[in-house]
Structures are given as C-alpha cells and as structure tokens.
C-alpha cells in the first residue's frame, strides 16, 4: 500500500511528469484522435475531396463480409499463436525449473528469439519453408508432402502461426519460469508427502498456482498476435494467399496504404483501438484483484 505523503505546493512534480505527458500526447493522443476524426471522413484516392460522413465507414465495414472474414482469421490466428507459444513455453519452463546445473546458460539461450525482430523472424521461417529452396519443405517433400504456403491458405496460416509463436515463446518462458520459481517449495514437498508424483503435482498444484501468470500471458499473447505480428505477416505471406492470413492489423495497412481507403482504414483502427482498450481493462482489473498466495 502506498502512503500518501503530502508535500507543499510546488511546480516540481508537474515538471517531472511533463516529459511523459508530452510523449503520450505526441505519440498517442494526437494520432489516435486523428484516426478517430479520419474514420468519420470519406476521401477519394487522390486526396482531392473530403466529405464528412459520420459513421458510414463503420456501417460499410460491418456489412462487409471480407471484414468479418478477416475478423475470424484474426481470432483463429491469435488463438493458435497464444496456445502454441504458451504451451511450448510452459513445457520448457517446467523443464528449466528442474535444471540445476547450467540453468543460466540454458535460460539465456531460450531468451534469444525474443531479441529477433519480427521481420527477421518472418524471413527466417520463409527461407526454411520456401517451396523451392527451403530445407523444411525439402524434407517434407522427401516424406511425400508437397508444401506450398504460397498457394495453400491453410499452410500459409500454419507458417505465420509458427513464426509468430516461435518469437513469443521466449517471453512466455521467462514469465512462466518466474511464476514457477515463486511457488513455495514446501507446497511441492507437501504434495510429494501426500503421495503425488511429479505429473500429478504439476496438474494439481503447480498449474492452478500458475493461473495468474497464465491469464496475464494470455492477454499479452492475444495483444501480441493482434497487433505485433504485422512484420511476420508482411514478410511471410503479405496477407495471402487470397486473404487467408489477412489479419485485422494487416488489413488496416492493406486497405489504407495499398487500397487508399483512408476512412475505412481509420475506422478499422478505431475498432482495434477499442478492442485493445477492452483487453487492457480486463487485464488490469484481474491483475489488481489477483490474490497473493
């Protein structure tokens, strides 16, 4: 609990928060309000004429089956990314928690993928899975499977999911490991005396106690999959084939800067903004209510 310490009136506190306020204003409030305003405008592709159309952009958007397709793709994509990266990270963390010798080196190695930029990560996976050059697709064809994510929407989705999840595993791993290490050792010992084997202890004791971490990571991963995978998608599939990997955030870019439908693109951004605000609110509420064991 923070104590409210009262100082005399002074300009110093205001000066101290000023840089933060300026950064927020310039890099968030201003562009956000621009997007909000833009979403109510209809502009021709050459920027010659602008019309204030109230919510028509939103109406168009919500009645567009392509938008709903993109919505569904995003849900599937983010669910798969979150599930894959979190389950891998959890397994790795459970193992790492048992490692005693060389755990530092092991951990450092596992954290490296997080330092790789999304575009680089995407490029890496594209190389491996390139239908003509890739080592993995070569191996797959040797097994009798013809991999071509440039033609097959399902394979394209699988590839962007793998690339995005791979990058996020490191982050999730760190949090899971920290969560595991904060579980009192005596609880595990008590369970051992109660006769629970390692597997049983994990399911009955460790996972329930890890649930605050899991929930936090779920929100973080969904936000990641929603907004931060743009680079991966751009490099690996560019939203294709035939829009199979066209997630919402990629559609904003595609419609706005390629299709030059600025109003529609802005309206999509506004919807995304509302979604991320909602997610953040959920997370904060939960984190605050979270019980300390």
């Amino acid at each position, binding site marked *: 609990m923070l104590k409210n310490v009262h100082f005399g009136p002074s300009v110093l506190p205001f000066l101290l928060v000023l840089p933060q306020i300026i950064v927020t204003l310039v890099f968030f409030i201003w562009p956000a309000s621009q997007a909000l305003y833009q979403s109510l405008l209809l502009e021709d592709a050459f920027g010659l004429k602008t019309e204030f159309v109230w919510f028509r952009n939103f109406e168009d958007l919500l009645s567009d089956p392509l938008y709903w397709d993109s919505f569904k793709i995003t849900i599937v994509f983010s669910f798969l990314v979150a599930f894959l990266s979190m389950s891998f990270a959890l397994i790795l963390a459970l193992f790492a928690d048992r490692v005693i010798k060389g755990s530092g080196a092991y951990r450092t190695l596992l954290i490296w993928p997080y330092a790789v930029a999304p575009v680089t990560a995407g490029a890496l996976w594209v190389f491996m899975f390139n239908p003509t050059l890739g080592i993995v697709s070569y191996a797959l064809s040797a097994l009798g499977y013809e991999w071509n994510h440039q033609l097959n929407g399902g394979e394209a989705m699988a590839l962007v999911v793998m690339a995005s999840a791979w990058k996020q595993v490191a982050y999730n791993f760190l949090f899971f490991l920290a969560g595991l290490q904060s579980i*009192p050792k005596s609880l595990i010992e008590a369970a051992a005396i109660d006769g629970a084997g390692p597997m049983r202890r994990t399911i009955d004791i460790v996972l329930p106690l890890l649930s605050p971490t899991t929930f936090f990571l779920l929100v973080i991963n969904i936000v990641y999959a929603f907004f931060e995978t743009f680079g991966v998608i751009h490099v690996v599939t560019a939203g294709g084939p035939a829009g199979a990997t066209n997630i919402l955030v990629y559609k904003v870019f595609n419609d706005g800067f390629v299709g030059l439908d600025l109003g529609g693109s802005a309206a999509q951004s506004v919807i995304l903004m509302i979604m991320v605000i909602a997610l953040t609110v959920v997370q904060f509420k939960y984190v605050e209510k979270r019980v300390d064991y």
Partner: protein
Amino acid sequence: MARVVLEGIRKTYPNGFKAIHGVDVEIEEGEFLVLVGPSGCGKSTLLRMIAGLESITEGRLSIGGRDVNNLEPSERDIAMVFQNYALYPHMSVYKNMAYGLKIMGLPKAEIEERVKKAAAILELTDEQLTRKPRQLSGGQRQRVAMGRAIVREPSVFLFDEPLSNLDAKLRVQMRLEIKTLQANLGITSVYVTHDQVEAMTLGHRLMVLNAGNVEQLGTPIELYQRPASLFVAGFIGSPAMNFADAKIDAEGKNITISGQEALPLGDGGMPEHGGKDVILGIRPEHLELVVEAPDAVPMTVTMVEQLGADTLVHGHFGESRSDLTVRLDGIRHIKGGEVLPIRVAPDHLHVFDPKTERRLS
C-alpha cells in the same frame, strides 16, 4: 505407530559441506523426540532426511522395521507439518486434508469420514472446512496443517518448527494442543525447534544438535540437571547458565572462581581433577540470596530486571569480570551498585573442561 531407527546417518552436500556428522538414535513407538539447536545446526536437514525430502549420504534409516533410505516420501508412511504450513492455497480446507487420501485411492465415503474425524479432533467447524486457507487465522491454518497430517493416519509425525510463525500467546496454546494430540494419538513424533522452552515442554527426549553433531540425547530433566557439554548447558534453561573460569584445588574439595573465595564441591569433591583449570557453570535459579552465611559470596549488582514472578539480578562476583545472573523469587527491591551476599548450592555446580567443553565428573 512405529519405531524409527537412525544408524550412522550422515549428510554431505554435493559441494562438500557436511551437514550431519553421524546420528544414532532409536525412537521408540509413541515417543515424542525433539530435535533442538540453533539455526544452521542441521536439525531441519535431519528431519527432511527422515521425511525423504533430502537424500541420506550414509547410514541406515528404518521406520517400523522397514529400511526406507531409498523410498519416496509418500512410501515412508509419514506425515509432515511444515513451518509455513504449506497448505494448498487454491483448495478448500476440506480438499487440503482430503488430497493425500484421494491420491491413496480411498473411497469417497472413507475420505469424508476421516476428514470429519480429524476436523472434530482439531475443533474445525464444517463452515471452516469449506473455506480457503487464506481466510483462516494463523492458528486455524496450523490446525489444518495438522489435520492434513492426522487424516493420513501415518506411523510417524514430523514437525518442522510448526509454531514459529505464530504469535507468543498462540504458540503456548498450540504447544499444549500438540502435546495433548500426540499423547492421545500415540503416534511416534519427531519435532524440530530452535526454541528450548518448546523442546523442554514437548519432548519425551531431546536431541541437542550443534553444527551437525549430536551434543546430547536425553530427557528434558537429564539435559537440565546434567548437561553433557558447555553448549547444552548454555542452550537449555532460561535465563542461560552463568559461566566463570575457575580452578579446582589440589585435593579436589573446593573450587575457586578467579580471585574469589573457594566454594565447596559437593558429593565428596572431584579428587581426580585436582588442580585443574575448569569452567564452572551455575544456573541463575541455583543462586540464592542469604542474610549472613559463612559460605556466602559477595555479588556486585549492575542491573535488575523485574518480571513480577521473578527478579533477575545481573552483576558479578566481587571484583571478577565474569557476568552473573541470579534469579530470585517474587519482587525484590534491589538497586544497581548494591553488594549482595549470595550462596551457591553445592549440589548444583556444573564443571566443564575448558578444552573439550565436555562435562567433568
């Protein structure tokens, strides 16, 4: 109920640190053995070795006639109460107590019966059984932790400083409850504590550990009356025993605290140690204030602590520098600077070898 036998138990950690240097003890059926010592003496390690939470480097451990060195904790037929209780925070009190039984694969009806029985013994209400551990007070959590141990109906109870997280008043109450419970159930128990009062009140026998060595094993009264070493003498009893450098005279009849009058050694003296430099130990309660007696020693008072029931007088014998504490009954009006005639009861002198720190005589 089972006999627990430790033979030559040693523990060496992978980094070469020797935590336990060979412990031999036979804990009888239904006995309450207390492991006591300062922090870092290896008492918790020894308990955890009995529990199976630490491996045994050397020696043999048997519970109920069965060698258990290489058995898992759950196979040793033990139950343990942890210092921080180690209750599963996400489970209700009922589930906490039932968890081990569920894993044993007991039928639901029997689990319920056993949990209800344990709850009744520990005076936990049905309403409390539905609560989560965090909704309970410290004393209630302590009861649940014991309940979890009781329901397993083990051969041996292991307690790892179970009262150290409670406040002083509750500690005294729970101490009595544990003693009563153990006496009623008659289950062999090993109890770890650093608190000598807890050790004295609970244990049938005490094992005093110091730096991984057994200093002494015996009943509380044996340890109090005949401490085997300087360490035990200083550790058992409160306020702690007074020590002073002293010399036994050539005939072994009297003992002299440096530069003071000679005190007679009771029971015919110690002729075999005649002329030896020793450490003399006297408990504060074995010094008495006398009016005028030929064998009284003058004590210079420096400080007085009034406890109501007793008065603790701190000072030193005459001009000697060794500190001395005297425990007098009731309220005494004594001031610093006074010189009191003090008599030492000759039957209550403890003489130790200054080199080996073991008891002489």
